């Protein structure tokens, strides 16, 4: 869902983030041998923005995301995430971001509350903070008796919402969501986006990948990766105009057609 862009403000903050951008890259590149997975990408993401990171399988999204999360060192180019340098301050980056993927996010053999306690502890929150935040999160999730169930017994829609709550439990500046809604029923998928919207209104920056093109419409801005490059970046409405397309699906198709990379 688009919002008026007024809640997206570039603000400088106490961690020494002079530009005010939550993510900032310049010619960021990653090569594996002679294969260029990410090819000189440059973009900025503002505080509180919902930024959609789209592209075909093999376009380089995961590699780019791993560099931004401080898990992989770039070959060249520069980048700052939450104000920290992606070469030298990877540990600081990890402390200031949240991450959720469809594949792994929660410990299935722990309850919802135990997961929150574990992740809060990992991120160095004290017991008092963990307690308050757990109460807040459970209230927002609207969970009743389910909060004491092992995660593996939760329906997929609820599990996904809990995973998101856990990924923002330590109040990160940015949360990276890697295909967060795969396999979820249509109502749960929409409720999930409503949670994303609330988080963004609270000032958390959202960086999200998805294969659902209707979800691209919910982002403030969307980038499209083709063969390691960012070939288009704008608001959904501007992209539709630029590509003379009725919806984001058509935008995606016209860009993906340009791909030359055959992924073995």
């Amino acid at each position: 869902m688009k919002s008026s862009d007024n809640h997206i403000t570039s603000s400088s903050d106490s961690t020494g983030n002079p530009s005010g951008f939550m993510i900032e890259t310049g010619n960021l590149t990653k090569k594996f041998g002679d294969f260029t997975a990410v090819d000189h990408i440059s973009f900025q993401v503002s505080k509180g923005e919902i930024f959609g990171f789209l592209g075909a399988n093999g376009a380089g999204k995961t590699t780019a995301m791993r560099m931004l999360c401080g898990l992989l060192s770039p070959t060249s180019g520069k980048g700052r995430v939450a104000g920290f340098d992606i070469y030298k301050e990877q540990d600081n980056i990890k402390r200031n971001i949240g991450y959720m993927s469809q594949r792994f996010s929660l410990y299935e053999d722990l309850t919802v509350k135990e997961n929150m306690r574990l992740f809060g502890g990992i991120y160095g929150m004290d017991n008092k903070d963990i307690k308050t935040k757990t109460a807040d999160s459970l209230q927002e999730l609207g969970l009743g008796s389910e909060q004491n169930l092992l995660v593996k017994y939760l329906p997929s829609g609820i599990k996904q919402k809990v995973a998101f709550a856990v990924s923002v439990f330590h109040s990160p500046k940015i949360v990276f969501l890697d295909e967060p809604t795969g396999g979820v029923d249509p109502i749960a998928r929409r409720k999930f986006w409503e949670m994303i919207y609330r988080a963004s209104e609270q000032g958390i920056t959202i960086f999200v990948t998805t294969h659902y093109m209707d979800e691209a419409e919910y982002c403030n801005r969307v980038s499209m990766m083709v063969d390691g490059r960012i070939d288009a970046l704008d608001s959904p409405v501007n992209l539709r105009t630029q590509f003379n397309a009725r919806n984001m699906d058509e935008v995606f198709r016209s860009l993906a057609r340009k791909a030359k990379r055959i992924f073995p």
Partner: protein
Amino acid sequence: MPSVTINNISKAYSSIRALDHISFDVGKREIFGLIGPDGAGKTTLFRILTTLLLPDDGTASVEGLDTVKQYREIRNIVGYMPGRFSLYQDLTVEENLNFFANVFNTSMQENYDLIKDIYIQIEPFKKRKTGRLSGGMKQKLALCCALIHKPSVLFLDEPTTGVDPVSRKEFWEMLKRLKQQNISILVSTPYMDEAMLCDKIALIQSGKILSIDTPENIIAGYPQKIYAVKGENNYRLLEYLRKNPDVQSCYIFGEYLHVTLNNEFDFRFPDKVEVNPTKASIEDCFIRLMDHRPERVSD
């Protein structure tokens, strides 16, 4: 005779009812879509039909063969692509194909026609170990392996999950070509837009079938008017509309909200809001059918 007949099948895992009295048929040369979210029971049904799991209750047959009593015969005539990639990762592309051909007493050459269109796309990498292929290539190889013995029924469990929209479209075009070669296909997907590509679909949730028909009929059967509504800030508009008792449901759909009303006569949308009547999509139908069903909690 239908290719697949499912008659009142139920299956529970301890206290979880994975399938709750399911019945339907898949016709000859039909692409039948099983549409539903994770945990709906799709994989359990596939495992019963491919003779890998016994139902607690009910019967099923594939090409007239009983899934319990004639499981050996069934295994020779069906192709199964499980949701989880299950080829041998340390064999090459070519080795995997030859292996599966051998298991079924055939050879790659014998049924090459059937897989040719798909295989030529992965052939440049035939000497590569399967574990080192990208997701899209693995998916194509898995389909070739499921086809190598020329099955008459193909079972595809979420073949397009996690696949980008362009590759998904290509995959469905391959399925259409297979159908023309006299293969019946039962395919599951969580992507509702793919429902339109099937001849017939079953919407399934929490082990129960919500609706079975052609996708066109399911859409035509949507009983209410839907309005596509757009405001300056759709999220705030959504919160506003949900509070109104005349609004029956309100959900985000791309750049619009889809709204249905309890009371068509008295309700007025706020000013400066774009309002257009719109056609239902499969997702609208699914949402309406599941709306008042609580999510299943199993303990």
